[in-house]
């Protein structure tokens, strides 16, 4: 018998006519690792919330959810312990100030005795290997560490099943990978059932026992990863959700099982192709940094050391590098928010900088998207109403003009913020991780928008962790390491010369071996 059975589940939010979920049925076997994916707004989050009584949104539900063969709501309050949940936002889901308080939080709610709590926390901390974090304030933790703490806090209740709502969306790829691997380990070693909503499907397909794909509130496909993969590949508009190596395999028409990892793909003799045709950079320098050095405090270690960077007119330069390598600091210096202690920074005549922050919420000050765009344009007086309207159409934001910016999807928020930056008529755009937390469809759209902006003569400097996005949108890539730029090359050369920090295509290329 399956641990969880969902039968003909439909759900509509209160005061809304159109259902968000329609006739959803699937099973989750005990101990399985189930991936729930789908297009943005397909109801993944809403579905997960149906499974937890405490956070179920108000609305009309029909159909039945069985847990251990009994309707979910017929179970008592022990369900809080039985099914745990990890949320997307690392900052908001940690509610206390320090790590040990956060870990104890769920146990305290269960009125656990102090000696028992001490014991459980001790074993959990040892298992997670986070002794070094125990006394730190939550604020000082990285996003990945925060998500680990959130997971540990949920696991302390010893649940039979955990739900995860895009837990890695706000993390950089390195942290995301280690979080997912840890999750897989928890699943395998303890048989804890996992139901995870994700759009970084690239990594998760390989670990999942079962995949459920949602589209517009309905189950589009479900079953073994391979079957779902083939079903997705059949639909051109959903092809983006197929992991890259699997898509190449299906494209080649080869026989055999669909590969999900580079290793499997190599065994099946799959080769990739490059999608991007980068434009060789122009010769006119619009921004030039020479020998920049910077430290935040007198005795702190240098964040940037002797950094040289040149931006050419009309190019898109992707700046990559690990967390804490100084990427955001460099942007701050370019924007004049901080002053370098040494070095020269020259911005070409008539060049204006526009900055898109990592979190689009930072840009919003009005109650509606309309205000965010039209009123702002009027305030700073750069664009008239007709021009603004053309931009809005190009960004596909007409539909959401009267909504509150916070109610938009992540991609729409990002577009609104980008548009408001464009209203300042910048010639150089500085983008800080514009694809963070975004799904494949949005990335495609953004790459196209950026291409158009380049054609209009804008120069773009983009800080990103997203190798695949850099490959398909950038002209040149630069790697920030040890306070300086270590490599600055055209995209193809950059990834071809890299061995580990590179794209699936380059990993599959024969001549590397």
């Amino acid at each position: 018998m399956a641990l969880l059975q969902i039968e003909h589940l439909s759900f509509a939010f209160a005061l809304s006519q159109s259902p968000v979920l329609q006739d959803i049925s699937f099973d989750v076997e005990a101990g399985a690792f189930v991936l729930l994916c789908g297009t943005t707004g397909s109801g993944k989050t809403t579905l997960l919330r149906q499974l937890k009584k405490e956070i179920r949104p108000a609305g009309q539900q029909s159909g039945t959810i069985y847990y251990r063969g009994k309707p979910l709501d017929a179970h008592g309050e022990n369900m809080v312990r039985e099914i745990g949940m990890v949320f997307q936002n690392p900052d908001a889901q940690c509610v206390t100030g320090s790590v040990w308080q956060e870990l104890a939080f769920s146990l305290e709610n269960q009125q656990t005795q102090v000696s028992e709590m001490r014991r459980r926390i001790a074993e959990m901390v040892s298992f997670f290997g986070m002794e070094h974090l125990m006394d730190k304030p939550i604020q000082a933790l990285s996003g990945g560490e925060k998500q680990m703490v959130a997971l540990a806090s949920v696991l302390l209740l010893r649940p039979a099943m955990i739900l995860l709502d895009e837990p890695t969306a706000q993390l950089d790829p390195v942290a995301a990978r280690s979080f997912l691997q840890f999750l897989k380990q928890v699943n395998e070693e303890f048989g804890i059932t996992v139901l995870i909503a994700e759009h970084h499907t690239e990594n998760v397909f390989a670990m999942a026992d079962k995949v459920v794909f949602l589209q517009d509130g309905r189950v589009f496909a479900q079953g073994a990863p391979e079957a779902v993969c083939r079903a997705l590949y059949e639909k051109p508009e959903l092809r983006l959700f197929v992991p890259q190596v699997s898509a190449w395999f299906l494209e080649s028409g080869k026989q055999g099982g669909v590969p999900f990892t580079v290793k499997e793909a190599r065994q099946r003799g799959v080769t990739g192709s490059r999608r991007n045709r980068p434009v060789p950079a122009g010769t006119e320098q619009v921004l030039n940094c020479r020998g920049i050095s910077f430290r935040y405090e007198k005795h702190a270690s240098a964040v940037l050391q002797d950094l040289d960077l040149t931006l050419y007119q009309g190019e898109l330069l992707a700046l990559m590098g690990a967390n804490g390598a100084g990427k955001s600091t460099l942007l701050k210096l370019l924007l004049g928010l901080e002053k370098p202690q040494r070095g020269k920074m020259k911005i070409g005549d008539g060049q204006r900088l526009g900055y898109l922050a990592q979190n689009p919420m930072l840009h919003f000050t009005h109650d509606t998207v309309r205000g965010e765009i039209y009123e702002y344009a009027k305030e700073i007086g750069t664009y008239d109403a007709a021009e603004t309207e053309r931009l809005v159409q190009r960004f596909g934001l007409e539909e959401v003009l009267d909504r509150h910016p916070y109610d938009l999807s992540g991609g729409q928020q990002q577009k609104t913020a980008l548009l408001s930056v464009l209203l300042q008529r910048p010639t150089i755009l500085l983008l800080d991780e514009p694809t963070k937390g975004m799904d494949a469809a949005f990335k495609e759209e953004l790459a196209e928008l950026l291409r158009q902006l380049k054609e209009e003569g804008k120069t773009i400097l983009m800080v990103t962790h997203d190798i695949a996005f850099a490959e398909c949108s950038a002209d040149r890539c630069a790697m920030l390491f040890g306070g300086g730029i270590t490599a600055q090359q055209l995209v193809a050369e950059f990834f071809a010369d890299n061995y580990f920090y590179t794209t699936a295509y380059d990993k599959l290329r024969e001549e590397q071996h």
Partner: protein
Amino acid sequence: MKQRHPITCLLYLAGTAAVPMLWLHPIVLVESVILLVLVNGLLDGGRQMKRNLGMMLILAAMFLLINPLFSHRGRIVLFNLWENPVTLESVVYGGLLALSLLSVLLAFLAGNVYLDADKWMYLFSRAAQKTTFALLLCMREIPVLRQRARQLHAVHRLKYKEERGGLRRRVSRGARELGALVSWSLEDALLAAQSMRARGYGLHRKRTFYFPYRFRREDALLCGFFVLTGAALLYLRLSGGLVFSVYPRMDLILWGVKPATACLLYGCYLITPVWLELEEWQKWRCFK
């Protein structure tokens, strides 16, 4: 001292603050100031003292000056200032007040180091559970808010850089920035509330409280020592003959068996952190 149980720390703090406050005796006060400087230096290398030096000296100087200016009691007139007599007694009393204040401040500075926010929370939680938990949530929100405000401000400065505008526009923009901060925080608060509910908050009216402190044998010993010394000091203080009186007539007998005992006891009490540290250091040396 930093490793000790909150109750031990609180007792120590109570003693170090109460004695100089209640006992204006020049020798006790001088001893207290010197030893507390030593303790502070040991606990955090005097970092906090350095940071607050100016404030402490100004406050002490104010006490030192204000008393003789406003109190004209006493027999020995030193000089007249604006037709008001300044007496030796009031100068001495002002000095004692200044020293007392200085010791109390130093005691709390040291307390800041060994009795951190978490330990205070533990102490509060014994008295008022719900309030403590609410406080915990609020305390976390302060640095979060500060960080958010900083980020928002940077983006908004860039958003309106080209144009300065009059006072009215600037005020309205500031208000909007504040509005953005509030709505963002509320948004996050909703998520936080869900995360709390998902982990069973509100299911039971009463929660337990976990703190990583254990009351060990050393704590019991220390607390016993603090209570005994405190009781002895209190007895000496109340038994009379030790009170250094300034008004109406200055008491010139500073020293005797009783004051000496009191000073010795209080000294031992004060330097507890020092010998705790020394013991630790000794252990380390033996280990090697």
